[in-house]
């Protein structure tokens, strides 16, 4: 194994069946050393199964898995050079924090002072220095999560696996811990595979997002590419709230396309567009809602007041639209006729 391949991961035509049910039909995926890749998708899309196969907790039905250039497909979990952070943290309740962190080191045969030093370093790394003597149950959720991270990191694995690591934390803490995880990963430069169903989390931490649907990769790319250039209705809807509406491409010039949608004519990036009917993704926050007359009219169906913004469901000629209005002060009552316009930044043709 050279330094180039350390931390590289490859799935080669991996298939996983559970009895008659095929969770993953055919998965091929490469992860570069030092990359943080997020597996994103709704529950049941196969993202956790993928992660567990990488950890060695499930055996693929067919195909190969390589870590650091070495075929590990048949290698049991305890002999793979990866470690995992669990959704429930899975801290051993009968061991102190330090014993938890030392556990993996001792399993690997490390002894005495070396273990103590490594544990100390590991706990300092996550900002829990001096907490080693406590029991996990005496820590807060965020602290427990950090112990789980430290426990995984002291083993200096080639790849760190994180299975929905933030889903048991409350919203405010989630933002902080996710930043910390990303910083650690950037600083130490390890490869990480991160499973989540939260698109915001995925956008915030990833080098690359792999969106999965029904056991297949629906689209993969850097966060911005996925957000701005969704490949399908599913992606458009899953990454950021979008309305997908029919439109007509009327002209193409210099990378821009002129599309007619409802009563409006808009300029959007052309991507692979051809003239004729197409589908357009319209972000909920790219819709401007105003009273009065205009070229594109709709009628408020429901409205909700959420403090810093308003949410509308609007009936229009091209179907119902979901709009988030951050500017309006008072919600418009249902039945009000409104005129709609689109901000260009929130529009994308679906390729």
């Amino acid at each position, binding site marked *: 194994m050279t330094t180039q391949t350390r931390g590289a991961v490859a799935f080669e035509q991996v298939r996983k069946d559970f009895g008659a049910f095929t969770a993953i039909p055919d998965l091929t995926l490469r992860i570069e050393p030092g990359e943080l890749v997020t597996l994103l998708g709704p529950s049941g899309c196969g993202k956790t199964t993928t992660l567990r196969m990488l950890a060695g907790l499930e055996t693929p039905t067919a195909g190969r898995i390589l870590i650091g250039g070495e075929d590990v497909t048949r290698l049991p979990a305890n002999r793979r050079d990866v470690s995992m952070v669990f959704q*429930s943290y899975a801290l*051993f309740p009968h061991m102190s924090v330090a014993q938890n962190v030392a556990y993996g080191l001792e399993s690997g045969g490390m002894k005495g002072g070396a273990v103590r030093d490594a544990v100390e370093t590991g706990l300092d790394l996550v900002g829990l220095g001096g907490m080693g003597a406590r029991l996990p*149950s005496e820590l807060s959720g965020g602290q427990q999560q950090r112990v789980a991270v430290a426990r995984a990191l002291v*083993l200096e694995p080639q790849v760190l696996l994180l299975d929905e690591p933030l889903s048991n934390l409350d919203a405010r803490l989630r933002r902080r811990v996710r930043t910390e995880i990303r910083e650690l990963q950037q600083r130490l430069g390890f490869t990480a595979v991160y499973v989540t169903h939260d698109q915001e989390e995925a956008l915030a931490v990833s080098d690359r997002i792999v969106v999965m649907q029904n056991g297949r990769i629906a689209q993969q790319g850097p966060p911005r590419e996925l957000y701005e250039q969704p490949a399908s209705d599913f992606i458009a809807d899953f990454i950021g709230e979008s309305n997908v509406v029919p439109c007509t491409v009327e002209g193409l010039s210099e990378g821009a396309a002129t599309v007619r949608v409802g009563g409006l004519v808009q300029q959007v990036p052309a991507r692979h567009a051809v003239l004729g009917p197409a589908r357009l993704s319209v972000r909920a926050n790219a819709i401007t809602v105003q009273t009065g007359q205009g070229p594109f009219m709709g009628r408020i169906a429901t409205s909700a007041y959420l403090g810093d913004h308003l949410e509308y469901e609007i009936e229009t000629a091209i179907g119902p639209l979901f709009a988030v209005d951050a500017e309006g002060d008072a919600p418009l009552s249902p039945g009000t006729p409104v005129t709609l316009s689109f901000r260009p930044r929130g529009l994308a043709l679906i390729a």
Partner: protein
Amino acid sequence: MMRDNRRLNFLLLAASISFLLVPWYRLRGGFFGLGWVGDYLGDDRIWPGVAQLGQWWLWPVPALVLLAAGLRLTLPPSRRGGWLAVIGAAGIVWMMTQGLSVGLRGWNWGALEALGEVGGQQAFGAGAIFMLLCFAAMIAFGLAERGALKGDAFVLSAITLLILLVALFVFYPLVSMFTGAFQDFDGSFTAEGVARNIGDPNIWSLGCLTGSGGCGVAWRTFFLAICTATGTTLLGLAFALVATRMRLPFKKGLRLLTVLPIITPPFVIGLALTLMLGRAGFVTEFIEDITGWELGRWLYGLTGIWIAQMLSFTPIAFLVLIGVVEGVSPSMEEASQTMRASRWRTFRKVSLPLMAPGIANAFLIGFIESMADFGNPLVLGGNGGVLSTEIFFAVVGAQHDPSRAAVLATVLLGFTLSAFLAQRLWLGRRNFATVSGKGDGGRHAALPRRVAGPVACIAFLWAGFTVFVYGMILFGGFVKTWGLDHSLTLAHYARAFSVGFDRGFVWTGVAWNSFWTTMTIAMIAAPLTAIVGLLTAWLIVRQRFPGRGIFEFALMMSFAIPGTVIGISYIMAFNLPPVQMTGTALILVFCFVFRNMPVGVRGGVAAMAQLDGSLDEASLTLGASSPRTLRKIILPLLRPAILAALVYSFVRAITSISAVIFLVSAKYNMATAYIVGLVENGEYGVAIAYSSVLIVVMISIIGTFQLLVGERRLRAPVQPAPRINCQETPA
């Protein structure tokens, strides 16, 4: 790769030692005594397998080992794994086949004589047993090399070993019993015994219904079981309602009742009843004195057995029904009350129907317990016994008719297994009791008045009766002769438990011998039971292997096999080669392990279900092997369940009688069997004294255990401490 090879090298070495050095056949003096070492060279019966190769049927054994060694040298693990597993399986199949075919005096089966004349062979000894284990390990290692169960050799070995053990100690005896029914004294096939017994009117007659004579023993047992099940369920429900739905004094004391059936040797109640209500019982005499009636022997027979079983098994029903009554979600009852239903209507229309499956469950458990009961009918049966005692007398009595015993045992097994299947298949899907784990707010509705009054009355009367009976048991050890001379004496205790100092310290009491045997065997069996039970539970809960459901079902089914049936089947299976153990302490240990294991399994499964599965996985991904995970993570977290399994199996080994009475020998006599002997000789005083001592010993053991577990819970209040009652019952 390295690891796979090292493992296999070790296995091949072990197999070679088993074949080349260790005595192949069973030694009369026992293997562990090591008395054989001195005669090793001189006596060909002690020689290892390699020296027994004059017997051609042993040739495949070394051939298979050599084949495996050849694979080890020529093929990498991934390619040889499947073949290794096949070799291992072939080894086991061949060893069992030859062992069953060639008996002490040649062929066991007439049909095989066509293959030529053979000499006889002894039962398997240490060498053969080790070789069997090596073949089992070969299956496991082979499958691991193929990558089965993520290549975990430890898990695969454990599964293989358990399947082998369950096959040997649960299914092989039953099969032996069935075939035994069709064998003559010389081993040849005959259907005569079965034909004679299966239609025997003494078993199947329904004469008592038509008024022409008595009913057959099968029906009598069945009626008794129905009556006992009904009675114990009703009483148990009354107790459960009092304990959970009413605010009364002494309620806590009711829960103590649940400990009674575990610590009471099964015939003790019958014994106490005899002393109270029997022909010379003091209650009988009191009534006769006052009224002048001649009560006579009314107690002996089904009535007496029924009363004794009611006393013995009501606590079990109580234990089951507490869970059922508490399992009804309070919000259901509150919902009913908010919809204008009275307490009576709520109870009748909501609470009771929700409890119905649990009540049916308690009924079936009572049915099985009554069917399997041996101690009470033995003491109180008189002339009209039940199936379990008839089986016993068919073997030990003057008639000595093994095929009759086998037929009766089959009938008994048929009844209990039907009840068990009904419980699992039919009730299993009908459980309304909410066990969501999440606390369900609200409070249980109070009982309607028309239920509360009678229920409390019945419960406290019965509790009083039970306390009285137990009081009699303790008191009975201190009086000279029951019914005749009630002056206090310590003579019975002295006779049973005296010690002497004439020539040094001597255990002079008659009970010591069986007492220490019992304690020793229970002490050996208890940890084995706990290990086997919890290992099985771990495999069932945490490992996904094909056939897991069947494996679990078969294990649980062994709980429904009455002790009498186990006893008779063990003698039929283990009296002759290939596996010969009767008369040893080993057979008692194995009997206890596999009889009490299902409880350990159930406790372990329940406890394991409360442990987050990602704890195991975390340990694995942190580089720990499965044995290390088991040792460092699972065992410490399961300590209460382990203690419970230990105590339960220890206590059960002390109180059990039904299977034991077939398996004891002069050398290894157990306390219960010895007490039954005392009763048969009419030495009631000593029997009662001995029983009291046993009860006190067991109470102190359970008390200590409760203290231990309780203390631990205080120390670590936050961790998920799955607490398993040691009063487990079949459910």
